[in-house]
């Protein structure tokens, strides 16, 4: 881990000037509690990995961070999630603008049934980020470039995105998220549908994106967490068990449950 920034030197849940924080976050799906008093800080321009056994609430937590849980019926949330110190569950917050600042990439690549170009242009168009066709072209090109996809698709920008391979589709989804210039990108198991080569490409990409964006990634692969993240948070049964620098979590976990999980004894 070459480029660990200075703010990541502490291994405590709280860090000096976090980009996002969660405080005493509880979440209920109707009557089932899925998250219990989660406290977690996300450091700016770093990759934070969320790991834990299936069903422990990683995706649920991730969706809390850009209010995607609002689209599910019967969800109750209490506690606080902040972005740059402001509560994102405040009534005055516009979810539309919030999601433009906190982008999301999903487990399964989900390109819209439109052309490659229109997929990337979707966000800038609905947010009115551009005034001219040239500007839009510019954004589309740089986003594709950043997602490492430009070389492969620049001759077929107008062909349907669904015709791309799975790995290309996932990188297109990343380009689509990048195109609205978010500050934070949330990724829920972005490589679980990809083969090792495509996975390596996406991981490389995540590492590059780190210099401009704050990234939170859910993953089931210990190796992936170790490779791409600077901080790792371990969830178990809806609770945040341990969080710290990735090196420390993997070499010297403080909690027995963390140790058990990363050494493969459960999960």
């Amino acid at each position, binding site marked *: 881990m070459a480029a660990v920034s200075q703010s990541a030197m502490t291994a405590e849940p709280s860090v000096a000037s976090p980009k996002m924080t969660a405080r005493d976050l509880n979440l209920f799906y109707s009557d089932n509690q899925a998250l219990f008093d989660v406290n977690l800080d996300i450091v700016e321009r770093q990759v934070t990995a969320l790991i834990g056994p299936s069903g422990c609430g990683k995706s649920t937590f991730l969706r809390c961070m850009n209010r995607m849980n609002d689209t599910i019926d019967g969800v109750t949330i209490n506690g606080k999630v902040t972005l740059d110190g402001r509560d994102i569950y405040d009534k005055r917050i516009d979810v*539309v603008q919030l999601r433009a600042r906190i982008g999301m*990439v999903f487990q399964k690549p*989900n390109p*819209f*049934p439109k052309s490659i170009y229109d997929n990337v242009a979707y966000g800038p168009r609905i947010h009115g980020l551009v005034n001219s066709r040239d500007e839009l072209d510019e954004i589309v090109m740089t986003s594709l470039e950043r997602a490492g996809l430009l070389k492969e698709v620049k001759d077929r920008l107008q062909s349907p995105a669904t015709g791309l391979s799975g790995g290309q589709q996932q990188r297109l989804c990343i380009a689509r998220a990048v195109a609205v210039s978010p500050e934070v990108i949330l990724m829920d198991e972005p490589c679980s549908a990809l083969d090792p080569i495509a996975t390596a490409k996406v991981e490389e990409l995540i590492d590059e994106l780190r210099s401009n964006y704050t990234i939170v990634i859910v993953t089931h692969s210990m190796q992936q967490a170790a490779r791409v993240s600077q901080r790792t948070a371990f969830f178990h049964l809806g609770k945040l068990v341990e969080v710290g620098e990735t090196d420390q979590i993997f070499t010297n976990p403080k909690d027995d449950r963390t140790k058990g999980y990363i050494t493969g004894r459960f999960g």
Partner: protein
Amino acid sequence: MSLSFLLLAVAALCALSFYFGRQRAVALSGGRYSNLHSLPAHYGTYVALWCGLPALLLLFVWHTFQGSVIEAMIIADLPAEITSDSGQLSLALNSISLIAAGNGQHLTVSPEVVDAGRRLANLQSIANAALIVVMLCGAVIGVSLSYRKISPELRARNNVERISRWVMIACSAIAILSTVGIVFSLLFEALHFFSKINPLEFLFGLEWSPQTAIRADQVASEGAFGAIPLFVGTLLITVIAMCVAVPVGLFSAIYMGEYASPKFRAVAKPALEILAGVPTVVYGFFAALTVAPFLRNNGAILGLDVSSESALAAGLVMGVMIIPFVSSLSDDVMSQVPKSLRDGSYGLGATKSETIRHVIFPAALPGIVGAVLLAVSRAIGETMIVVMAAGLAANMTVNPLQAVTTVTVQIVTLLVGDQEFDSAKTLSAFALGLVLFLVTLGLNVFALKVVQKYREKYD
């Protein structure tokens, strides 16, 4: 013994053979079903099928031939002066069957015919008794053969599945053959019509007045069979109906599927679908008695001349009728758009309406087009509403305030009442029917193709 009783008896026999077949398989298995090739129930079904199918097959064959065989026997015994004249023969056969059924007391007929009637009754009762015997024999032979064949090695499951496959093939053959039969009769009658009237005149003629002279001495016109006014009328009403049904159906589908709370949806969706259950004749008198007068009165206020039967009234009501059709089909296709696409759009900060407009609707568009095409073919084929509300006058007009007539309405009026079957007037109904059939068939095939193509993308 009546036919239904006979069928009941066969069913009972089947049940019995199932029981005994199963028992025998169980006995042969020595308590361990795994010794058998198939489950005991398969052996039971095997025997039951061998009981029921031969019996039913014999019944079918017997009934197909019984009538003609007995008639031939009766005719053979009639005196030559009756059989030589076909008119007299059919009269005599009529009386004979009346006498045989015991209703011939008031007839004044020759003694030969009375005799033949008695003989017919006699033959029929013999035939019925023989049928019972033959069916039972068939069943018993089938049962005993198959029962004897039961052994642990018998592949009863495979046999049963093969037989049931043939039964299903037979059923679908019946469905297909009857459709083909109908289409062909339509086709032949239409060809018959086209041998009298030039098809070009029919398809492109601008005047429709099918009244022709029935007797040579009547004063009546030649009749004109240009179907264009009917096509225009049909098209006009369909367009009006679609103008109502497509926007209303589509928006209600979007509201129900994307915005409405589950509670509201649970109430409103069935309520909308009740519209689809209203008999079309009810829509018809609603159109004729409520909507048409309403339009005429309001038209008069506005200084418009609305005739009391108008394309507008029929089209509006037909549109209402088709709303649930459009809305439930497009609701289906829109709810098939995967959740991941919505999430992707919401995750980029799109609002609900942006997501619907830019992602869901385009993704569902082929399916929606399919739904609309199916609705169009429904509207074209709809009869009752237009009969009651659109009028009969074959006006060549695109003014929705006037009376027009449609293909279906003309078919109805052509065939209502006493008709001479081979006059051009009657036959033209078949030609119209053929056109209607081809158009709706084409629309349906196209619509289903579109819908299917869309399905492949997401399944």
